[in-house]
Each structure stands twice: as C-alpha cells, then as structure tokens.
C-alpha cells in the first residue's frame, strides 16, 4: 500500500451496488448504511473529493469497521476494501482522528521486539501452563515456558530427519509469546508428514498488529520479513495463524507464496489420527475471516479435517466474522460481544460430547473462548486450533508412506 494520499480515483470502482451490506457485521448490527463498506467508501471518497468536511461521524464509522473483509468476497467489482481501509485507518491514527486504546499501543510497541515480548509474557506462559484462568480471552493450554519453537523444531528435525518438502514457518509474536503450544504442535504435525521445517531466526512480527491498530511501524516489520523470508530456498512459507498468513502474504508478494499450514497439509494428505469407535466428540469448524476473505482460501481442506479422526461439520455461518477482528474485541468490546453472541448461540444446543470449536487463528480462538467465559455459551466446550487435533504428540515417527521430495 502506498503512503500517497487517497485520491477520489482510488474509490472509483465501487459502483454502489450494495452487495457488501448483507455480509457486513456492523451493518447487520446497526442497520445503518454508513456503517457498511458501501457507506464507508462513500464517506471516504466524498471527503477525498472535498465534498464532505472531516466529521466525527466519519471517524466513528471508520473505527466501527471490524476489518473482516467479508465485503471483499461479496464485491462483484473487486474493490480492494482492505487495502483502502488500512490506509484510511493509518491516516486517522496519524492525524489523531482516532486513538487506539493504551493497551494496544503498548502491545504494538512490544511486538516489534520479540525477545522482550517473549520475556514479558513469561509469567503469563507459566500461569497458563499451571492452569490458571487469567482472562476471558486466554484459552487453556500448556506452552513451553523457555524453549522456543525454533529450538524445538531444530531438535525434532535432528531426531526425525524428514526428507520431504522444505517449508519456512512464521512463528508469530503472540503465538510464540503466549500460545507456543500451538506452534509446537504445528512443528510436530509438519515433521510427522515428512516436511522439513525451517524457522528463520531473523523473522519479525508480520505487521498485522500495526495494520489492525493503524499505528506506525508496519513498513519496518515488512522489510524485516522480506529479508528473513524473501531469499529462502523453500517449497513454501507456512503460517498457522490466518491473520499473520494474510499479512505476511501481502508483504512477500509478488514472488513468494505464503500458505496457511492447513491448506498446505491438504496438498499432502496428512497422517490421520485414530479415535475410539465410541468417541462422541464433535468438531464444529469455524473459518477465520482472514483465511477465507483475506487469503481467499476456499476453507480448511476436508481431507485435513477428516484426518483429525473426529466427526466434524462447519459451524453455522462459518464464513461470518466471530467479532475478534484482530484487535476489534479489545477496541470495540461491546460490538464484538454482540457479534459473537449471534455466532456462538448454536453451541448451546450443538450435538456431541465433548464439543470442540475448531479454527485456525489464535485471535479467533481467544474470541471463541470468551463465549464460554462471559456466559454466552453455558455448556462446556473446548476451543482448539485444527492443527492441535492433528497433533501426534511427543512420541511419533514419520510413516514410511510419507511424501518424498
């Protein structure tokens, strides 16, 4: 995205058809057309054309956007809404028309220094590991406190010596600092499927945090990742968080293709987990917005979901936003809660024991977990990353039938 000022031309391919209204979470929430992509584009283009002065309501409706990008999927005229929105949000923050919450500003500064961020969250990792319920967003898990994913991957590479395709893995900032157990599971699943995993040491935050908040610094992070990933000789670059994957994909294109790890595994027909005959588990699969609307993936491949060994089905409205929207559930908690209330209601009646809500983005996982913690869903359910449902555990070996180079 260029940093040039928006010109009215930029908005010109919105023909005002209105197809985005039906899929927009904030339009559905408020019924106010200004609070829809078509409305926002109109506000921004009128302001850019000098027909509308700066207005607190323009600021309000801009800040209301979740950034789910469902409108991009619905748009017949392929308006690059996400790109425009990102630019406008940055402009609004830079010109003090919008101020992200203090916690987000601090976090945005912290993620640019991964060592510090990892250290700062060490107590949180330890407490999560010990089973403390720290916050409505923090789903349970047992992250390694000290060993990094990079060190772990190197250890497993030595032990198992996979011979298949080589992938570089973006470990992420919050994923690494807080939800490291998902990264570990990702490494195990890839290596079990005979994939060689490389974790470039010089990688940084994907920049999604800055994109979501509109804060400065995204270009430096992108440059860091272009250096870390740009010249690697690998078959693919994979991410296990669809938001990070979307951000890194934008950074490295054209040239390098960034894949969601589940989509990548779909091409390999992953090793299938065996479950007991009488296992009554039912997995409801929710598709992260930045996977289907950002990365434009069709979904999570059926063979990958089958390989979990569980009975699964797509959650109702699986392609609709859960309200997490990167940092939206922190910036606009009331809206996020209402969006989640509608989306999660089915879980109260959903068949299966136990019930798992499976998805592929840690931010969505946090949001879904809060449905239980805030009483929207009253029956017990677990939130898991789909990669965790494919996890062979510590003791595994590479099957002899795995894909060869």
């Amino acid at each position, binding site marked *: 995205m260029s940093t040039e000022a928006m010109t*009215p031309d930029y908005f*010109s*391919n*919105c*023909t*005002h*058809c*209105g*197809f985005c*209204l*039906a*899929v927009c979470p904030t*339009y559905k929430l*408020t*019924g*106010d*057309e*200004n609070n*829809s992509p*078509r*409305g*926002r584009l*109109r*506000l921004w283009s*009128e302001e850019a054309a000098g027909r*509308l*002065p700066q*207005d*607190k*309501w*323009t600021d309000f*409706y801009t800040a209301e956007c979740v950034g789910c990008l469902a409108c991009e999927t*619905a*748009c*017949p*005229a*392929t308006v690059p809404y996400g790109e425009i929105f990102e630019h406008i949000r940055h402009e609004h923050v830079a010109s003090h028309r919008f101020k992200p919450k203090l916690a987000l500003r601090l976090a945005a500064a912290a993620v640019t220094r991964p060592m510090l961020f990892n250290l700062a969250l060490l107590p949180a990792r330890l407490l999560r590991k010990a089973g403390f319920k720290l916050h409505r967003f923090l789903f349970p898990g047992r992250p390694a406190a000290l060993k990094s994913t990079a060190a772990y991957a190197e250890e497993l590479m030595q032990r198992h010596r996979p011979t298949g395709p080589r992938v570089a893995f973006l470990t992420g900032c919050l994923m690494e600092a807080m939800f490291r157990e998902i990264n570990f599971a990702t490494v195990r699943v890839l290596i079990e499927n005979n994939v060689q995993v490389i974790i470039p040491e010089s990688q940084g935050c994907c920049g999604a945090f800055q994109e979501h908040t509109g804060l400065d610094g995204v270009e430096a992070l992108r440059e860091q990742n272009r250096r870390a990933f740009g010249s690697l000789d690998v078959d693919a670059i994979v991410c296990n968080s669809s938001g990070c994957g979307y951000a890194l994909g934008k950074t490295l294109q054209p040239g390098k293709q960034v894949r969601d790890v589940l989509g990548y595994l779909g091409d390999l027909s992953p090793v299938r987990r065996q479950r007991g005959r009488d296992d009554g588990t039912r997995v409801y699969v929710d598709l992260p917005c930045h996977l289907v609307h950002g990365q434009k993936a069709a979904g999570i491949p059926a063979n990958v979901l089958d390989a979990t060994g569980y009975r699964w089905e797509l959650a109702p409205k699986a392609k609709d936003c859960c309200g997490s929207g990167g940092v939206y559930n922190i910036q606009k908690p009331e809206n996020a809660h209402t969006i989640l209330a509608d989306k999660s209601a089915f879980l109260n009646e959903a068949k299966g024991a136990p019930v798992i809500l499976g998805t592929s983005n840690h931010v969505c996982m946090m949001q879904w977990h809060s449905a239980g913690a805030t009483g929207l869903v009253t029956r017990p359910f677990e939130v898991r990353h789909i990669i965790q449902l494919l996890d062979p555990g510590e003791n595994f070996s590479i099957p002899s039938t795995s894909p060869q180079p």
Partner: protein
Amino acid sequence: MTSPVKSSLEHQLKALLPRGRVLTSAAQLAGYGADGLGYKNHLPDAVVIPADAEELAGFMRGAKALGVPVVMRGAGTSLSGGPVAVQGGVVVHTSALKKIREINTEGFWCEVECGVGLNDLDAALKPYGVFYPPDPSSGPVCTLGGNVASNAGGAHCFRYGVTSNYVLGVEAIMLDGSLHRFGGPAGGRGPWREDWKRFMIGSEGTLAAFTRFWLRLLPLPEKVWTFRATYPDMKTTEAAIHALVAHSSYPAAIEMLDPRGVAMVESSQMACGLPEGSFMLLVEIDGPEALVNARVQSVAELLRQAGSNDVMFSDEEALRQKLWKARKASGGLLGQLSPSYVVQDAVIPKRALAEVLQLVYDEADAANIRAVNIFHAGDGNLHPNFLFDSRVPGELEKVELISKRLMQRVIEVGGTLSGEHGIGNDKSAYMPLVFGPDSMRLQLSVPAAFNPAHQMNPLKVFDNRHFVA
C-alpha cells in the same frame, strides 16, 4: 453549521422515534445519497431507522406534520433511483424490520416484514420444501419491501412470473397514520372490494409505507436441469429463443449474454471457455423429476437444431453452478470494467430483439460508449448496460441520449419502459413517450388519492410530481 430548520426537524424526528435512530450529520447522510445508481447523488435532510414496525407506524402518524418528503428505503440496491430523496426530506430505512413472522406450509404462504432480505427468506423457507419464486440478481441483499415497491422479477420469472404474482397481501400505513391491510393470507379475497393490493405493488414508495406482506409460496421443484448453449450469430440465437418459448417443456428461465458480454467474461478471471464472438443462452427447466427428466433430450435437441454445436447440460448442483457462472459473474464484471454503468430495463416483443440490439450497438459505437447486453431473453426483458465514467464531462449525457433513443425505438416496436427495475427518477423522463396526457393524468391521480401533496417519494415515476408543503 446546523440550520434552525434542520435542528427543529431533528428534534421532531427524535420525538417520533424514541427507540430508533435519527441521522442528521452531513457524514451520516452521505451514505444515503444514492441507490445502485451510485453516480446520482441526492442527499436527504435526515435518515431515520425505526427500531421496529410499531415505531415505523408511530413515525408515519407524525410524518405529515413534518412537512418534508418521506422516502422509503430497503437495502438501496435498486437501479432506478427509487429510494433516494430527490427533493430532500427524510429517508426511512427499514433495515430493522426483518422478522419472518410466519411460514405456513399448509396454506403455502408466509408473512414477512418489509425489511426481510430476499435470500434470507429463501434460506428460511428451504427446510420446509417451499420457495418464493421471484429472484432478482440482488437477492443476497435486496429486501422484500423494495421487491414489492418495484415489482421485481428475475431470471426465473419467464415461467414463474414477477413479484405481483406472489403477493397475497400488503399491510401499509398512509401519511394520515391509518393502517390498512390490502389482502392477506387469503389473497385478494379480503374485505376490500377490488384488488387494492395491486395498487401497492410497483408503487415505488409513492403511496404509503409498507410494513408487512403475505406472500404466496410454491413447493420446491423436485428436479432442475440447466442448459448452456452458444450460437454463432443473432439469427440462430433468436431461433433458439423462439423455439424455447413455444416448447412444451416450458422453461423456467431463458437468459442471454451477447458477444460483448461473452468477451467481458472470457477476458476476466471468471473465464469459462465460451467461444469468441458467440451468443450464450442459459436455459433451465424444472418440475417433477420423471416429467423433467423425460424432457431433457428434447430441449438439448432443440438447442442444437437452432444452430448450436456446443450444448452442455446437467442436473448436478456443482455442474449447474458452473453453467450459470458466466451469467452470474457478468453483472459484477461490469463494475470491474468501468467506474459507472447504467442498466436499462426495457421490455420488447421478442420478434424485435435483433433490431433493438443492433440499435444498441450502433448508438453505443457511434458515441464510443461500451455496451454489454445481459438479459432475460425469454420474456424480452432487455438489460443493455452502458459502461462509462461519470467523472468525464459529457459521458453521462451521451449515455442518457443513447438511452432515450433506445427507449423511443422500444416503444415504436411495441415495447414498454420497465421490466422489473421500476421507473424511479431514472426513467421518469421517458414516461410521456409511452403514455399520452390523459393516461398520465389518470395514473397521477392514484398517488394523489393516497397523499394529495405528493409527500411520499416525490419526483419519482412522474417528473412533475412535486411535493408542495
């Protein structure tokens, strides 16, 4: 700077809508300046979003005293300027009135509020094995209120008919605050002596505010077959259309894409292998399985005999979607090609198809305007799309001139103005081409009877329908 008049309006509106929303800031009105014709912008003085039907009724009771025009709006997807405040005033956005109140599978009807989305209704009906046939392309977002107001059609209305064939009853509130039910679940056989609901359908917001409808449903067809055929020229395409219309298989839909539409699809990411320079026909037959299956070969044979050596057909959902792909993608692709476009909406006798299409090409080429034809061929409902850039001085005027010439010819060949989009303010200038002064006077007396000052959606349908406070 807020004028005293405006602040008084805001004050009155807030009193009328204690629970709903009242928008009056410049940046809150900007989103309501246009409908699907994005380049025509008329800002209202205020927008209200009633919280529910009760509040809408309350608003209507007080609306007359506001002394400003009242313009109803559903999702604002229309292509005729209908839900836009051309003479200023208050836009009433019915986005919160989206309750499906009853689905009655014994009587094959449903009761819905005016803001229910068309495809939302479809999704709700499906588990019951019933459907509501009108299917305008804006289905994912358009509302039933807008559908009834413009008497919407769609691809399948060749056999199934348009909205008016499915409205059993309309509940409407007049500006005097009186609430009326024209018809109901029992259709026209209500307390009103004549079929008054028919006045409401296609009235484009000029008579009253709709609150709810009773709609007729049909059982979902057991079986659907979709056919796609391409033709080398207009003559063979026309032969196929004529043969289809007369055929005993009674197709549900006959859709057409002209070579310029085909070229547009084929040069996009939606390309599906249509031969260059060809006309594409999309045909669908449906009904009881045994009956429809027995007709498949005869339809395929008919399409071949008319001159196509490229006939594909399927009854499998995934393949059917593939056959529909070019037709469904075409509308959106227009938006990728140019910043603005006008979709005309004329109905012509089928025998005049080739002649009118040629006129479209000649006029557009002479003016250096791109024209693409995507339309409902079965019922002669033409949709020539003129692609232009509204920011280039003179382009809109050129398109308007072509449109006018097209309409003149349409009327000369015995056609009429609007198949399904409504007149709005986009086609009101052409009304005198179709109707003489006596006829215009008679028609104008209808909205005058319902709201004598023309406070409801003024300057729509009739160019001279001004609201005078």
